[in-house]
Protein backbone atom coordinates (compact mmCIF):
# COMPACT_ATOMS: atom_id res chain seq x y z
CA UNK A 1 0.00 0.00 0.00
CA UNK A 2 1.25 3.36 -0.89
CA UNK A 3 -0.42 5.87 1.35
CA UNK A 4 -3.08 6.44 3.93
CA UNK A 5 -5.70 7.18 1.32
CA UNK A 6 -5.25 3.65 0.04
CA UNK A 7 -5.65 2.38 3.57
CA UNK A 8 -8.97 4.19 3.81
CA UNK A 9 -10.08 2.74 0.51
CA UNK A 10 -9.18 -0.75 1.61
CA UNK A 11 -10.77 -0.38 5.03
CA UNK A 12 -13.97 1.01 3.63
CA UNK A 13 -14.13 -1.75 1.05
CA UNK A 14 -13.51 -4.42 3.65
CA UNK A 15 -16.03 -2.90 6.00
CA UNK A 16 -18.67 -2.64 3.28
CA UNK A 17 -18.11 -6.31 2.44
CA UNK A 18 -18.37 -7.21 6.11
CA UNK A 19 -21.61 -5.25 6.41
CA UNK A 20 -22.95 -6.78 3.22
CA UNK A 21 -22.26 -10.31 4.46
CA UNK A 22 -24.17 -9.57 7.66
CA UNK A 23 -27.10 -8.32 5.64
CA UNK A 24 -27.08 -11.45 3.49
CA UNK A 25 -27.66 -13.40 6.71
CA UNK A 26 -31.06 -11.72 6.60
CA UNK A 27 -31.92 -13.87 3.57
CA UNK A 28 -32.02 -17.07 5.64
CA UNK A 29 -33.20 -14.84 8.49
CA UNK A 30 -36.41 -13.81 6.77
CA UNK A 31 -36.77 -17.29 5.28
CA UNK A 32 -36.57 -19.04 8.67
CA UNK A 33 -38.74 -16.45 10.45
CA UNK A 34 -41.51 -16.77 7.89
CA UNK A 35 -41.15 -20.53 7.47
CA UNK A 36 -41.61 -20.82 11.22
CA UNK A 37 -44.60 -18.50 11.37
CA UNK A 38 -46.76 -20.13 8.71
CA UNK A 39 -48.55 -23.46 8.85
CA UNK A 40 -46.51 -26.45 7.82
CA UNK A 41 -48.49 -26.85 4.61
CA UNK A 42 -47.18 -23.50 3.36
CA UNK A 43 -43.57 -23.71 4.50
CA UNK A 44 -41.95 -24.84 1.27
CA UNK A 45 -43.79 -22.12 -0.64
CA UNK A 46 -42.58 -19.45 1.78
CA UNK A 47 -39.01 -20.67 1.47
CA UNK A 48 -39.32 -20.70 -2.31
CA UNK A 49 -40.66 -17.16 -2.32
CA UNK A 50 -37.76 -15.98 -0.18
CA UNK A 51 -35.21 -17.64 -2.43
CA UNK A 52 -36.82 -16.34 -5.60
CA UNK A 53 -36.92 -12.83 -4.19
CA UNK A 54 -33.23 -12.87 -3.44
CA UNK A 55 -32.54 -14.02 -6.99
CA UNK A 56 -34.84 -11.79 -9.01
CA UNK A 57 -34.55 -8.67 -6.88
CA UNK A 58 -30.77 -8.71 -6.80
CA UNK A 59 -30.49 -9.38 -10.53
CA UNK A 60 -33.00 -6.67 -11.41
CA UNK A 61 -31.09 -4.26 -9.22
CA UNK A 62 -27.83 -5.25 -10.85
CA UNK A 63 -29.15 -4.84 -14.35
CA UNK A 64 -31.39 -1.80 -13.91
CA UNK A 65 -32.10 -0.59 -10.41
CA UNK A 66 -28.68 0.41 -9.17
CA UNK A 67 -27.99 2.76 -12.08
CA UNK A 68 -31.45 4.22 -11.71
CA UNK A 69 -30.93 4.85 -8.02
CA UNK A 70 -27.40 6.21 -8.00
CA UNK A 71 -26.88 7.46 -11.54
CA UNK A 72 -23.33 6.22 -11.67
CA UNK A 73 -21.32 3.26 -10.42
CA UNK A 74 -18.24 5.34 -9.72
CA UNK A 75 -16.94 5.52 -6.20
CA UNK A 76 -13.83 7.06 -4.72
CA UNK A 77 -14.03 6.00 -1.14
CA UNK A 78 -14.28 2.25 -1.66
CA UNK A 79 -14.37 -0.37 -4.38
CA UNK A 80 -17.36 0.29 -6.56
CA UNK A 81 -18.17 -3.42 -6.46
CA UNK A 82 -18.32 -3.34 -2.67
CA UNK A 83 -20.52 -0.27 -2.79
CA UNK A 84 -22.85 -2.07 -5.17
CA UNK A 85 -22.94 -5.24 -3.10
CA UNK A 86 -23.83 -3.29 0.01
CA UNK A 87 -26.74 -1.59 -1.73
CA UNK A 88 -27.80 -4.79 -3.46
CA UNK A 89 -28.08 -6.49 -0.10
CA UNK A 90 -30.86 -4.03 0.79
CA UNK A 91 -33.17 -4.49 -2.11
CA UNK A 92 -34.42 -8.00 -1.42
CA UNK A 93 -35.37 -6.92 2.08
CA UNK A 94 -37.96 -4.47 0.81
CA UNK A 95 -39.73 -7.30 -0.98
CA UNK A 96 -39.23 -9.79 1.87
CA UNK A 97 -41.10 -7.38 4.10
CA UNK A 98 -43.94 -7.40 1.64
CA UNK A 99 -43.97 -11.10 0.78
CA UNK A 100 -44.08 -12.26 4.40
CA UNK A 101 -47.35 -10.46 5.06
CA UNK A 102 -49.18 -12.12 2.17
CA UNK A 103 -47.90 -15.61 2.94
CA UNK A 104 -50.18 -18.63 2.81
CA UNK A 105 -52.19 -17.38 -0.13
CA UNK A 106 -50.02 -15.64 -2.72
CA UNK A 107 -48.53 -17.42 -5.72
CA UNK A 108 -44.84 -17.49 -6.39
CA UNK A 109 -44.85 -16.36 -10.02
CA UNK A 110 -46.73 -13.05 -9.76
CA UNK A 111 -44.84 -12.27 -6.58
CA UNK A 112 -41.54 -12.79 -8.40
CA UNK A 113 -42.78 -10.53 -11.17
CA UNK A 114 -43.65 -7.84 -8.68
CA UNK A 115 -40.20 -8.34 -7.18
CA UNK A 116 -38.62 -7.53 -10.51
CA UNK A 117 -40.55 -4.29 -10.91
CA UNK A 118 -40.09 -3.29 -7.31
CA UNK A 119 -36.32 -3.67 -7.43
CA UNK A 120 -35.81 -2.39 -10.92
CA UNK A 121 -38.04 0.68 -10.60
CA UNK A 122 -40.12 1.44 -7.52
CA UNK A 123 -37.47 1.02 -4.84
CA UNK A 124 -34.70 2.63 -6.95
CA UNK A 125 -36.85 5.71 -7.39
CA UNK A 126 -37.32 5.99 -3.64
CA UNK A 127 -33.58 5.57 -3.17
CA UNK A 128 -32.84 8.06 -5.90
CA UNK A 129 -34.71 10.88 -4.20
CA UNK A 130 -33.49 10.03 -0.71
CA UNK A 131 -29.95 8.57 -0.72
CA UNK A 132 -29.12 8.56 -4.39
CA UNK A 133 -28.75 10.70 -7.50
CA UNK A 134 -31.78 12.74 -6.42
CA UNK A 135 -33.42 13.63 -9.70
CA UNK A 136 -36.00 15.65 -7.84
CA UNK A 137 -33.40 17.77 -6.07
CA UNK A 138 -34.65 21.27 -5.69
CA UNK A 139 -38.26 20.39 -6.54
CA UNK A 140 -41.10 20.30 -4.10
CA UNK A 141 -41.04 16.49 -3.99
CA UNK A 142 -37.38 16.26 -3.01
CA UNK A 143 -36.90 14.13 0.06
CA UNK A 144 -34.81 15.96 2.60
CA UNK A 145 -35.69 13.73 5.53
CA UNK A 146 -32.90 12.09 7.48
CA UNK A 147 -33.08 8.33 7.18
CA UNK A 148 -29.71 6.73 7.78
CA UNK A 149 -30.49 3.12 7.02
CA UNK A 150 -34.03 3.15 5.80
CA UNK A 151 -36.80 3.28 8.40
CA UNK A 152 -38.71 4.93 5.60
CA UNK A 153 -36.74 4.08 2.48
CA UNK A 154 -36.68 0.34 3.21
CA UNK A 155 -39.19 -0.54 5.87
CA UNK A 156 -42.04 1.82 5.06
CA UNK A 157 -41.62 1.24 1.35
CA UNK A 158 -41.91 -2.49 1.91
CA UNK A 159 -44.76 -1.94 4.33
CA UNK A 160 -46.81 0.17 1.92
CA UNK A 161 -46.26 -2.40 -0.81
CA UNK A 162 -47.52 -5.02 1.63
CA UNK A 163 -50.63 -3.01 2.46
CA UNK A 164 -51.37 -2.76 -1.25
CA UNK A 165 -50.83 -6.48 -1.65
CA UNK A 166 -53.11 -7.38 1.26
CA UNK A 167 -55.87 -5.08 0.01
CA UNK A 168 -55.72 -6.77 -3.38
CA UNK A 169 -55.34 -10.42 -2.31
CA UNK A 170 -57.51 -10.45 0.80
CA UNK A 171 -57.26 -12.42 4.02
CA UNK A 172 -56.48 -16.10 4.38
CA UNK A 173 -59.63 -18.20 4.28
CA UNK A 174 -60.73 -19.08 7.78
CA UNK A 175 -58.86 -16.23 9.44
CA UNK A 176 -62.05 -14.22 9.97
CA UNK A 177 -65.22 -16.22 10.51
CA UNK A 178 -68.61 -15.25 9.21
CA UNK A 179 -69.67 -14.49 12.76
CA UNK A 180 -66.92 -11.91 12.96
CA UNK A 181 -64.54 -13.89 15.10
CA UNK A 182 -60.79 -13.59 14.53
CA UNK A 183 -59.19 -17.02 14.48
CA UNK A 184 -55.63 -17.49 15.64
CA UNK A 185 -53.55 -19.46 13.14
CA UNK A 186 -50.51 -20.52 15.18
CA UNK A 187 -46.94 -20.65 13.98
CA UNK A 188 -45.77 -24.14 13.07
CA UNK A 189 -42.18 -24.03 14.21
CA UNK A 190 -41.06 -21.70 16.99
CA UNK A 191 -37.33 -22.57 16.87
CA UNK A 192 -37.23 -21.44 13.24
CA UNK A 193 -38.99 -18.21 14.18
CA UNK A 194 -36.39 -17.53 16.85
CA UNK A 195 -33.47 -18.44 14.65
CA UNK A 196 -34.80 -16.21 11.89
CA UNK A 197 -35.35 -13.27 14.22
CA UNK A 198 -31.79 -13.44 15.55
CA UNK A 199 -30.31 -13.74 12.06
CA UNK A 200 -32.25 -10.60 11.18
CA UNK A 201 -31.01 -8.91 14.33
CA UNK A 202 -27.40 -9.70 13.44
CA UNK A 203 -27.98 -8.60 9.87
CA UNK A 204 -29.16 -5.28 11.23
CA UNK A 205 -25.69 -4.56 12.58
CA UNK A 206 -24.43 -4.65 9.01
CA UNK A 207 -27.46 -2.81 7.69
CA UNK A 208 -27.17 0.16 10.01
CA UNK A 209 -23.45 0.04 10.71
CA UNK A 210 -22.63 -0.14 7.03
CA UNK A 211 -24.96 2.73 6.25
CA UNK A 212 -22.61 5.13 8.03
CA UNK A 213 -20.70 4.77 4.77
CA UNK A 214 -17.15 4.81 6.08
CA UNK A 215 -15.18 3.41 8.95
CA UNK A 216 -11.86 4.89 7.94
CA UNK A 217 -11.30 7.61 10.51
CA UNK A 218 -11.62 7.89 14.24
CA UNK A 219 -14.87 9.78 13.87
CA UNK A 220 -16.30 7.32 11.38
CA UNK A 221 -15.24 4.38 13.51
CA UNK A 222 -16.96 5.97 16.48
CA UNK A 223 -20.06 6.64 14.42
CA UNK A 224 -20.17 3.05 13.21
CA UNK A 225 -19.73 1.66 16.70
CA UNK A 226 -22.34 3.99 18.17
CA UNK A 227 -24.73 3.08 15.37
CA UNK A 228 -24.38 -0.63 16.05
CA UNK A 229 -24.64 -0.11 19.78
CA UNK A 230 -27.80 1.97 19.51
CA UNK A 231 -29.28 -0.43 17.01
CA UNK A 232 -28.77 -3.27 19.42
CA UNK A 233 -30.09 -1.32 22.37
CA UNK A 234 -33.33 -0.52 20.59
CA UNK A 235 -33.79 -4.20 19.79
CA UNK A 236 -33.18 -5.14 23.42
CA UNK A 237 -35.60 -2.51 24.67
CA UNK A 238 -38.16 -3.69 22.13
CA UNK A 239 -37.91 -7.29 23.23
CA UNK A 240 -38.15 -6.44 26.90
CA UNK A 241 -41.04 -4.03 26.47
CA UNK A 242 -43.08 -6.48 24.42
CA UNK A 243 -42.40 -9.16 27.03
CA UNK A 244 -43.59 -6.94 29.85
CA UNK A 245 -46.74 -5.80 28.07
CA UNK A 246 -47.69 -9.35 27.18
CA UNK A 247 -46.91 -10.61 30.65
CA UNK A 248 -49.03 -7.92 32.26
CA UNK A 249 -51.93 -8.67 29.92
CA UNK A 250 -51.81 -12.45 29.82
CA UNK A 251 -49.34 -13.64 32.47
CA UNK A 252 -47.61 -15.44 29.65
CA UNK A 253 -44.40 -14.77 27.74
CA UNK A 254 -45.46 -14.79 24.10
CA UNK A 255 -42.19 -15.35 22.27
CA UNK A 256 -43.55 -14.43 18.84
CA UNK A 257 -44.57 -11.06 20.24
CA UNK A 258 -41.28 -10.61 22.06
CA UNK A 259 -39.36 -11.20 18.87
CA UNK A 260 -41.68 -8.95 16.90
CA UNK A 261 -41.15 -6.32 19.57
CA UNK A 262 -37.41 -6.60 19.12
CA UNK A 263 -37.76 -6.30 15.35
CA UNK A 264 -40.07 -3.31 15.83
CA UNK A 265 -37.43 -1.62 17.96
CA UNK A 266 -34.80 -2.37 15.35
CA UNK A 267 -36.90 -0.85 12.57
CA UNK A 268 -37.62 2.22 14.67
CA UNK A 269 -33.98 2.98 15.43
CA UNK A 270 -32.93 2.55 11.83
CA UNK A 271 -33.58 6.10 10.70
CA UNK A 272 -31.04 7.67 13.04
CA UNK A 273 -29.00 5.29 15.20
CA UNK A 274 -25.97 7.56 14.88
CA UNK A 275 -27.85 10.65 16.05
CA UNK A 276 -28.81 9.64 19.55
CA UNK A 277 -27.03 9.30 22.85
CA UNK A 278 -26.91 5.78 24.22
CA UNK A 279 -30.10 6.07 26.29
CA UNK A 280 -32.57 7.42 23.73
CA UNK A 281 -32.71 4.09 21.88
CA UNK A 282 -34.21 2.58 25.02
CA UNK A 283 -37.19 4.84 24.60
CA UNK A 284 -37.41 4.55 20.85
CA UNK A 285 -37.26 0.78 21.02
CA UNK A 286 -39.77 0.55 23.84
CA UNK A 287 -42.24 2.71 21.98
CA UNK A 288 -41.60 0.68 18.84
CA UNK A 289 -42.47 -2.55 20.63
CA UNK A 290 -45.54 -1.01 22.18
CA UNK A 291 -46.72 0.02 18.76
CA UNK A 292 -46.23 -3.53 17.51
CA UNK A 293 -48.15 -5.05 20.40
CA UNK A 294 -51.10 -2.83 19.77
CA UNK A 295 -50.90 -2.73 15.99
CA UNK A 296 -51.13 -6.51 15.58
CA UNK A 297 -54.68 -6.80 16.99
CA UNK A 298 -55.57 -3.46 15.42
CA UNK A 299 -54.88 -4.68 11.90
CA UNK A 300 -56.78 -7.86 12.73
CA UNK A 301 -59.79 -5.84 13.73
CA UNK A 302 -59.58 -4.12 10.35
CA UNK A 303 -59.45 -7.62 8.80
CA UNK A 304 -56.10 -6.84 7.29
CA UNK A 305 -54.59 -10.29 7.54
CA UNK A 306 -50.83 -10.24 7.99
CA UNK A 307 -49.61 -13.67 9.15
CA UNK A 308 -46.15 -12.53 10.20
CA UNK A 309 -46.94 -9.10 11.61
CA UNK A 310 -44.92 -7.30 8.95
CA UNK A 311 -47.17 -4.24 8.83
CA UNK A 312 -46.87 -3.74 12.58
CA UNK A 313 -43.13 -4.27 12.57
CA UNK A 314 -42.04 -2.57 9.38
CA UNK A 315 -44.68 -0.07 8.32
CA UNK A 316 -45.74 1.24 11.70
CA UNK A 317 -42.21 1.38 13.03
CA UNK A 318 -40.80 2.65 9.78
CA UNK A 319 -43.04 5.65 10.27
CA UNK A 320 -42.34 5.88 13.98
CA UNK A 321 -38.59 5.67 13.45
CA UNK A 322 -38.67 8.45 10.89
CA UNK A 323 -40.67 10.65 13.25
CA UNK A 324 -38.35 9.81 16.13
CA UNK A 325 -35.47 11.44 14.30
CA UNK A 326 -37.49 14.64 14.20
CA UNK A 327 -38.20 14.42 17.92
CA UNK A 328 -34.95 13.17 19.43
CA UNK A 329 -32.36 14.81 17.16
CA UNK A 330 -31.93 18.28 15.74
CA UNK A 331 -33.35 17.27 12.37
CA UNK A 332 -36.54 19.02 11.28
CA UNK A 333 -39.66 17.09 12.27
CA UNK A 334 -41.47 18.71 9.38
CA UNK A 335 -39.08 17.38 6.79
CA UNK A 336 -39.35 13.96 8.39
CA UNK A 337 -43.13 14.08 8.14
CA UNK A 338 -42.95 15.24 4.57
CA UNK A 339 -40.65 12.30 3.82
CA UNK A 340 -43.08 9.87 5.38
CA UNK A 341 -45.94 11.21 3.29
CA UNK A 342 -44.07 11.28 0.02
CA UNK A 343 -42.80 7.74 0.50
CA UNK A 344 -46.30 6.63 1.52
CA UNK A 345 -47.94 8.11 -1.53
CA UNK A 346 -45.38 6.95 -4.02
CA UNK A 347 -44.73 3.47 -2.63
CA UNK A 348 -48.37 2.66 -1.97
CA UNK A 349 -49.74 3.97 -5.24
CA UNK A 350 -46.99 2.53 -7.40
CA UNK A 351 -47.21 -0.88 -5.68
CA UNK A 352 -50.98 -0.90 -5.85
CA UNK A 353 -51.05 -0.13 -9.54
CA UNK A 354 -48.38 -2.67 -10.38
CA UNK A 355 -49.96 -5.39 -8.26
CA UNK A 356 -53.37 -4.58 -9.67
CA UNK A 357 -52.14 -5.02 -13.20
CA UNK A 358 -50.23 -8.20 -12.38
CA UNK A 359 -53.30 -9.56 -10.67
CA UNK A 360 -55.31 -9.09 -13.85
CA UNK A 361 -52.70 -10.97 -15.86
CA UNK A 362 -51.70 -13.67 -13.40
CA UNK A 363 -53.92 -13.93 -10.34
CA UNK A 364 -51.93 -13.27 -7.17
CA UNK A 365 -54.04 -15.63 -5.16
CA UNK A 366 -54.16 -19.42 -5.23
CA UNK A 367 -57.47 -21.21 -5.69
CA UNK A 368 -59.60 -22.06 -2.65
CA UNK A 369 -58.72 -25.74 -2.92
CA UNK A 370 -55.01 -25.09 -3.25
CA UNK A 371 -55.17 -22.78 -0.27
CA UNK A 372 -56.85 -25.50 1.74
CA UNK A 373 -54.37 -28.18 0.72
CA UNK A 374 -51.51 -25.78 1.23
CA UNK A 375 -49.35 -23.84 -1.17
CA UNK A 376 -46.56 -26.34 -0.84
CA UNK A 377 -48.34 -28.83 -3.02
CA UNK A 378 -49.94 -26.36 -5.37
CA UNK A 379 -46.95 -24.13 -6.00
CA UNK A 380 -43.95 -26.34 -5.29
CA UNK A 381 -45.25 -29.89 -5.41
CA UNK A 382 -43.25 -30.61 -2.32
CA UNK A 383 -44.14 -30.97 1.33
CA UNK A 384 -41.93 -29.26 3.88
CA UNK A 385 -41.95 -32.10 6.42
CA UNK A 386 -43.36 -35.07 4.53
CA UNK A 387 -42.54 -37.66 7.18
CA UNK A 388 -44.02 -35.97 10.23
CA UNK A 389 -47.61 -36.85 10.89
CA UNK A 390 -49.56 -33.60 11.08
CA UNK A 391 -52.71 -32.77 12.98
Amino acid sequence: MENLADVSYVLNTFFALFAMVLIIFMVPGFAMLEAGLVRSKNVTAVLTVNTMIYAVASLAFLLVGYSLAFGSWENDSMSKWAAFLFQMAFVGKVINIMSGGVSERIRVLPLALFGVIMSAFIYPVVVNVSWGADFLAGTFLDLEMYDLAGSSVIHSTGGWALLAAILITGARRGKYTKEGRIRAIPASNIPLVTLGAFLLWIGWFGFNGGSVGSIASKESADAVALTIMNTNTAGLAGALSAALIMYIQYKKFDITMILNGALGGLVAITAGPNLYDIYTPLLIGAIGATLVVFAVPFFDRLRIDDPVGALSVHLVNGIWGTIAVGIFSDKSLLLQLKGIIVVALFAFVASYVVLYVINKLIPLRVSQEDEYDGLDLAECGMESYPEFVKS
Partner: protein
Amino acid sequence: MKKIEAIIKPFKLEEVKEALATLEISGMTITEVKGYGRQQGHTELYRGAEYVVDFIPKLKIELAVTEEMVDEVVQKIAAAAKTGKIGDGKIFVSSLEKIIRIRTLEEDREAI
Protein backbone atom coordinates in the same frame (compact mmCIF):
# COMPACT_ATOMS: atom_id res chain seq x y z
CA MET B 1 -74.35 -49.53 22.58
CA LYS B 2 -72.79 -48.98 19.21
CA LYS B 3 -69.53 -47.70 17.97
CA ILE B 4 -69.50 -45.45 14.96
CA GLU B 5 -66.25 -44.99 13.08
CA ALA B 6 -66.17 -42.42 10.33
CA ILE B 7 -63.30 -41.82 7.96
CA ILE B 8 -63.62 -38.25 6.67
CA LYS B 9 -61.70 -35.58 4.82
CA PRO B 10 -59.73 -33.63 7.40
CA PHE B 11 -61.12 -30.22 6.61
CA LYS B 12 -64.63 -31.47 7.32
CA LEU B 13 -63.92 -32.02 11.00
CA GLU B 14 -65.22 -28.65 12.10
CA GLU B 15 -68.53 -29.15 10.30
CA VAL B 16 -68.98 -32.68 11.61
CA LYS B 17 -68.28 -31.48 15.12
CA GLU B 18 -70.91 -28.78 14.77
CA ALA B 19 -73.42 -31.23 13.31
CA LEU B 20 -72.91 -33.55 16.26
CA ALA B 21 -73.23 -30.69 18.71
CA THR B 22 -76.82 -30.22 17.51
CA LEU B 23 -77.45 -33.76 18.77
CA GLU B 24 -75.80 -32.85 22.05
CA ILE B 25 -73.04 -35.30 21.42
CA SER B 26 -70.00 -33.87 22.93
CA GLY B 27 -67.59 -36.75 23.22
CA MET B 28 -65.48 -38.29 20.50
CA THR B 29 -62.02 -39.47 19.69
CA ILE B 30 -60.07 -38.46 16.62
CA THR B 31 -57.17 -40.25 14.94
CA GLU B 32 -55.01 -39.09 12.06
CA VAL B 33 -55.04 -41.86 9.49
CA LYS B 34 -54.08 -42.32 5.88
CA GLY B 35 -56.55 -43.56 3.36
CA TYR B 36 -56.16 -45.54 0.22
CA GLY B 37 -59.07 -45.92 -2.11
CA ARG B 38 -60.67 -44.79 -5.32
CA GLN B 39 -59.43 -41.26 -4.75
CA GLN B 40 -56.15 -40.81 -6.50
CA GLY B 41 -53.24 -39.49 -4.48
CA HIS B 42 -51.61 -36.29 -5.58
CA THR B 43 -48.42 -35.89 -7.55
CA GLU B 44 -45.36 -34.47 -5.87
CA LEU B 45 -42.11 -33.33 -7.35
CA TYR B 46 -38.68 -34.05 -6.07
CA ARG B 47 -35.58 -32.82 -7.71
CA GLY B 48 -36.91 -33.08 -11.17
CA ALA B 49 -38.85 -36.31 -10.72
CA GLU B 50 -42.58 -36.51 -10.25
CA TYR B 51 -44.09 -39.23 -8.13
CA VAL B 52 -47.46 -40.16 -6.72
CA VAL B 53 -48.22 -40.08 -3.03
CA ASP B 54 -51.04 -42.58 -2.88
CA PHE B 55 -51.95 -42.42 0.77
CA ILE B 56 -54.14 -39.46 1.49
CA PRO B 57 -54.50 -37.90 4.94
CA LYS B 58 -57.88 -38.60 6.49
CA LEU B 59 -59.38 -38.31 9.95
CA LYS B 60 -61.05 -41.13 11.77
CA ILE B 61 -63.76 -40.15 14.22
CA GLU B 62 -64.72 -42.73 16.83
CA LEU B 63 -67.91 -42.31 18.71
CA ALA B 64 -69.74 -44.47 21.20
CA VAL B 65 -73.49 -43.95 21.15
CA THR B 66 -76.63 -45.60 22.37
CA GLU B 67 -78.57 -47.87 20.01
CA GLU B 68 -81.38 -45.43 19.44
CA MET B 69 -79.07 -42.64 18.34
CA VAL B 70 -77.11 -44.57 15.75
CA ASP B 71 -79.13 -43.71 12.71
CA GLU B 72 -79.41 -40.06 13.47
CA VAL B 73 -75.73 -39.74 14.21
CA VAL B 74 -74.71 -41.57 11.08
CA GLN B 75 -76.98 -39.36 9.00
CA LYS B 76 -75.66 -36.17 10.53
CA ILE B 77 -72.06 -37.20 10.00
CA ALA B 78 -72.67 -38.27 6.44
CA ALA B 79 -74.45 -35.03 5.65
CA ALA B 80 -71.77 -32.86 7.21
CA ALA B 81 -68.82 -34.75 5.75
CA LYS B 82 -70.15 -34.98 2.23
CA THR B 83 -68.60 -33.00 -0.59
CA GLY B 84 -69.88 -35.31 -3.29
CA LYS B 85 -66.38 -35.81 -4.65
CA ILE B 86 -64.46 -39.04 -4.56
CA GLY B 87 -62.70 -39.71 -1.29
CA ASP B 88 -65.40 -38.48 1.06
CA GLY B 89 -64.91 -41.58 3.17
CA LYS B 90 -66.92 -44.25 4.94
CA ILE B 91 -68.84 -44.79 8.11
CA PHE B 92 -68.66 -48.12 9.92
CA VAL B 93 -71.05 -49.19 12.67
CA SER B 94 -70.27 -52.02 15.04
CA SER B 95 -71.50 -53.21 18.36
CA LEU B 96 -69.98 -52.49 21.77
CA GLU B 97 -70.46 -54.84 24.67
CA LYS B 98 -69.45 -52.54 27.39
CA ILE B 99 -68.40 -48.98 28.09
CA ILE B 100 -66.74 -47.79 31.27
CA ARG B 101 -66.01 -44.20 32.25
CA ILE B 102 -62.66 -44.41 33.97
CA ARG B 103 -63.20 -41.40 36.20
CA THR B 104 -66.38 -42.71 37.84
CA LEU B 105 -66.47 -46.37 36.81
CA GLU B 106 -69.97 -45.74 35.54
CA GLU B 107 -70.96 -48.25 32.90
CA ASP B 108 -72.66 -48.33 29.53
CA ARG B 109 -75.32 -45.65 28.99
CA GLU B 110 -74.08 -43.62 31.93
CA ALA B 111 -70.55 -43.83 30.64
CA ILE B 112 -71.11 -42.36 27.19
